């Protein structure tokens, strides 16, 4: 067992961290006060610099893809990373990206569809993919902090993917777990910075124990979520994958509510990025069926497999 990254992984994550410091990844309000900031520029940087292909490098692997997904999710700007870095190598390396993932029902409002060039459909009995044509997607107004769209019925030409559906589902769960952990960490970091700075009653908010303890609890959950997600990406074991996703989805409710709580009214504005994380978390907490499904799944895999 080794928690430290190997040399290649360390370099990979180091370069990524530098890139995340660049202005493409920085928070800015969007000109039309929209609830999300799709950063085509940052998304392209990830692709052009080969980050999204890390899973194909033997010394980097899916673990690096999960760590990448976690880090990208921490940023206030939005890029599409989980499907491209974790799923694409499994279901079709040629799929043009950005990639949207539709889970089960192909008529559901789905994130990234309006900016995606291809789509992966995860169904109970198989995986299909399609390249999107211009009329295939209708934009959907949404409270979630993603560009949301819906597939136009009959306008998509699906192809069965040559991939083990169980493996793909587990990889997707691991990717989502890494992503939701990253989203929560991004929000936590923003709130920690805020409560260090904001004074009430003559002292920083962050010196009040009622606030410290709830943020520290959140930090402990987020740490666990990060490692569970990486382990799941490493093993692709169904119990690991459902455990990682169920754990962080269960924790997300409390954490998201607390993050908003501690920012007071400021957290409601579109001038502060907190909503970029919390309204991603609010979508991701129900992904693939949500905590209840996954935690039951853990029990079933662990104890009823026989």
């Amino acid at each position, binding site marked *: 067992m080794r928690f430290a990254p190997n040399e290649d992984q360390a370099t990979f994550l180091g370069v990524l961290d530098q890139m995340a410091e660049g202005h493409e990844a920085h928070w800015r309000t969007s000109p039309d006060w929209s609830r999300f900031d799709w950063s085509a520029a940052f998304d392209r940087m990830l692709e052009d610099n080969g980050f999204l292909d890390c899973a194909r490098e033997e010394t980097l692997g899916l673990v690096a893809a999960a760590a990448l997904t976690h880090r990208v999710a921490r940023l206030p700007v939005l890029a599409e990373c989980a499907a491209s870095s974790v799923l694409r190598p499994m279901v079709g390396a040629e799929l043009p990206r950005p990639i949207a993932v539709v889970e089960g029902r192909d008529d559901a409002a789905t994130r990234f569809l309006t900016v995606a060039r291809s789509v992966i459909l995860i169904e109970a009995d198989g995986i299909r993919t399609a390249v999107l044509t211009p009329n295939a997607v209708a934009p959907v107004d949404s409270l979630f902090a993603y560009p949301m769209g819906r597939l136009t019925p009959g306008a998509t030409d699906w192809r069965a993917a040559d991939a083990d559906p169980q493996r793909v589902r587990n990889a997707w769960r691991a990717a989502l777990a890494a992503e939701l952990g990253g989203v929560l960490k991004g929000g936590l970091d923003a709130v920690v910075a805020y409560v260090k700075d904001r004074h009430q009653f003559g002292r920083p908010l962050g010196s009040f124990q009622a606030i410290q303890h709830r943020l520290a609890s959140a930090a402990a959950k987020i740490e666990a979520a990060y490692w569970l997600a990486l382990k799941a990406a490493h093993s692709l074991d169904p119990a690991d994958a459902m455990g990682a996703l169920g754990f962080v989805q269960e924790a997300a409710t409390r954490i998201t509510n607390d993050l908003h709580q501690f920012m007071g009214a400021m957290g409601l504005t579109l001038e502060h990025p907190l909503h970029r994380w919390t309204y991603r978390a609010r979508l991701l907490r129900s992904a693939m069926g949500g905590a209840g499904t996954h935690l039951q799944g853990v029990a079933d895999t662990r*104890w009823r497999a026989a």
Partner: protein
Amino acid sequence: MDFDWTDEDRAFRERVRDFLARELPADWAEMSRHGPGSKEQTAFSLEFCPKLAAAGLLVPHWPAEWGGSARPAWEHFILGEEMWAAGEPRGAQYMNVNWIGPTLMRFGTDEQKRRYIPPMAAGKAIWCQGFSEPNAGSDLGSLRTRADRDGDDYVINGQKIWTSYAGLAEHCFLLARTGQGNGKAGIAIFLVPMATPGIDVRSIPSLIGHGDIHETFFTDVRVPASARLGQKGEAWSIINYSLANERVGIARYELADRVLGRMVDELTQRGLFDDPVVRMRAGSAAAACDAARILVHRTVDKRSRGEVLGAEASIARVAVADAETVVTDFALDFLPDAFSGPGDLAVQTHHERAIVTGIASGSIEIQLGIIAQRWLGLPREMR
């Protein structure tokens, strides 16, 4: 990054399990109900630990010089997981392995090491930890027990409380104040033989088994200056080092996880595991155990690279306490009759001990404060 056990680790775990299967007596489940500090378990540990030592399974991770074989830190934890899950047949001696031995090796004088470490490595040393006092619990830095210099000796006066295993311990890892004032800087550590005149120990009846926790009184207890551990002004950092190791030392998640498995088996037999609510809660408890395990393993990984533990130990401890609570609540909700009558001894043992996790080795509130300030960098609370 690699989250698999190596073949060597797996083989080591098998060796430990085989050893336990061979060496634990038929009535062990009953015996281990009394707790690691009980007379029965202490007596047993004094036979069991020497056998473990002879098999190279007591302190494999210690350096050869001190009776180990310099094996990876992981073996220490594999041992800890198997032992705690089996009801801790090492009795109080797990403390030597987890933190007292390592602290002495790191900070002790040659004489102290030569005197105290070989008996620990041989499995024949029972120690206790004299930190807490009636008025110094979470606020350990305010302790009042005094050690006053008198010629070549120190004379110790004061009272400790909650001292686990003190009734049968031969030595105490004791904190006392040598300096003036109330600050942490005035605290020193002493290695005190419990047979020294002036020490009086009274057992405290408790929910966690008899013989576990005690009041310990020190009246004019005279020890030589050589009993002092560490240089002047060094004690508080030694205390932090030992507490960080202590905090993640007991593999509580392992017993919790196995007890959860036993409860699921029982519920399955009774036909109650078809209920999706029960399954979801079982899955949630399993995930909480996995979260605790991976965070503790992260600290082992850090230690195996020679790094000193900081707030990661507190993060792990908070997750362990969560896991303990979630598993206990699962039991209370879905298998309440396991707590009455002969019931399931493992479930009862777990339940009795789980209540400790949020309090001992620094309560959860203290851990959360450490995480807030040292991990998140939030400002210290103002007083």
